[in-house]
């Protein structure tokens, strides 16, 4: 038997509030992981808890036409991150210091690429820290929350055209900043390695 959609669970929670815990059980880990990549771990714990508490209080506003509550939850989480930009900047600085790529079964050529990737990711983190907040939010919802453009639009409550332009501008800036740091060619090579790693 198929499980109930998030929309059904949320609707049921109006009559039976504890039903909302099913939304928590389904999505806490993903929301926490997204937050833990953006801010300090301790803060991610707090913000993940806040995300679901806010979602519970706001459940009357949930649009039942959308079965999947992930965009809504990631939108709340992203709003919470906006109040902790310093922590986010610290997290990105930490990525600048230490970052590796997991990969297996690399041949010799790709080992070279892997080493280059290890060099590039800190610069990606640095570039990410320097792009505007709105563009970073959209990019990270795409890359870290695995949301589609349409879902990002729902998460941020902006038109899909704005999502597209933010992601486009964010990527352009990212490339420019990587180019400024002499990493464009390296990043290109690295991406090929990553892509081929699947």
């Amino acid at each position, binding site marked *: 038997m198929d499980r109930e959609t998030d929309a059904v669970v949320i609707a049921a929670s109006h009559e039976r509030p504890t039903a909302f815990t099913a939304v928590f059980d389904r999505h806490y880990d993903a929301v926490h992981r997204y937050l*833990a990549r953006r801010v300090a771990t301790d803060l991610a714990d707090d913000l993940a808890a806040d995300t679901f508490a806010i979602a519970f209080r706001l459940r009357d506003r949930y649009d039942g036409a959308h079965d999947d509550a992930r965009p809504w939850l990631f939108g709340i989480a992203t709003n919470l991150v906006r109040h902790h930009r310093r922590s986010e900047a610290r997290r990105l600085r930490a990525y600048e210091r230490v970052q590796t790529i997991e990969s297996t079964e690399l041949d010799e050529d790709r080992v070279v690429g892997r080493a280059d*990737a290890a060099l590039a990711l800190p610069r990606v983190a640095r570039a990410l820290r320097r792009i505007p907040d709105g563009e970073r939010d959209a990019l990270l919802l795409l890359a870290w929350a695995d949301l589609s453009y349409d879902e990002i639009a729902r998460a941020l409550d*902006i038109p899909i055209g704005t999502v597209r332009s933010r992601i486009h501008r964010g990527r352009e800036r990212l490339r420019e900043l990587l180019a400024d740091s002499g990493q464009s060619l390296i990043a290109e090579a690295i991406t090929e390695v990553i892509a081929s790693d699947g």
Partner: protein
Amino acid sequence: MDDIELLRHLGHDVPPADPVARQAARDALVALAMAPTVANRATPRLVRVPRLIWTAASIALAATVVLGVLPMVTAPSAAASALNRAADVAAGLFDGTSNGYRHTKSVGAELAGLGGTPDRPNGIWTLVPVAREIWIAPDGSGRLIETRGEPTWFGPADKAAWEAAGRPDLAGPAHVDTRFGPTPPGVDPATPQPWPGSFSLENVDALPTDTAALRQFIDRRAAAAGAANDYERFTIVGDLLRETVAAPKLRAALYRVAAGLGGVELIGSVTDRAGRPGIAVAMTNSQSSRGLERRTLIFDPQTSMLLAEEDVLLNKVNWLDADPPIVIGYNTYLVSDIVPTIR
């Protein structure tokens, strides 16, 4: 370069959630769910960064030329007549083509803010003036320059909250100068794509100028955006007029499509923020998460060119410290032409 893939590897190794923290969060949620009714009552809507990216003039001017407060909204059929007249004007113009850059210079204001915290669920909001200039080549590449000014507050409560929060950045970068690449080949214009304006000019030039065919395209586009309704179609008409320097025959078809939409209202003769006479039509969206929202397009009756746009909230909302009608975004197109080079 697929930088998104690169991003996906950044921070990929964060540890999983601490089971103790997870359980504590779940317990807190259960406690909240089991609390008395007051605790379970829905709180005000979580307001997030809004739908509009408008560009910009002074807010002081907004107060004196508030198109949104004009009460003379008339029957939809009058709007259809006005739009069909605009279509006739456009259809009578020379439909020459050019390989130059579509160049648009505009001023306006965009809503910017922070919101959605437990202690301040309604957020901190401001209107930020933005001047924008864009050049787009036939292949979709081009240059965009944006300059943002000082935010204007809707009310004292927003400013006080902003100061109490340590004056966080709300407006984004003061100056942006970006060059963007060409549109990838083989793209379906009805499918949302990641570039400024979301339509390449080759796509725009290739759009049907037959009204029924264009309406079909707009229907597909609206469906792809997840909002197959007339408000979205009206918005797409605006998208195709905005910064595209659409050729007269396309403009004619766009106005005829708009004339066929349900709920378009004629506001009438207005003067835009640049002091130019225009005809305003509008559509009201009662389903917007922001409130009862009216989107207005103003066009030049002599040329049918888009002169300006505006978004206004018509009702009192709990997320803005202002009384309706509240202008939440506008854009005035000062220059729309085709030029041989990027400045």
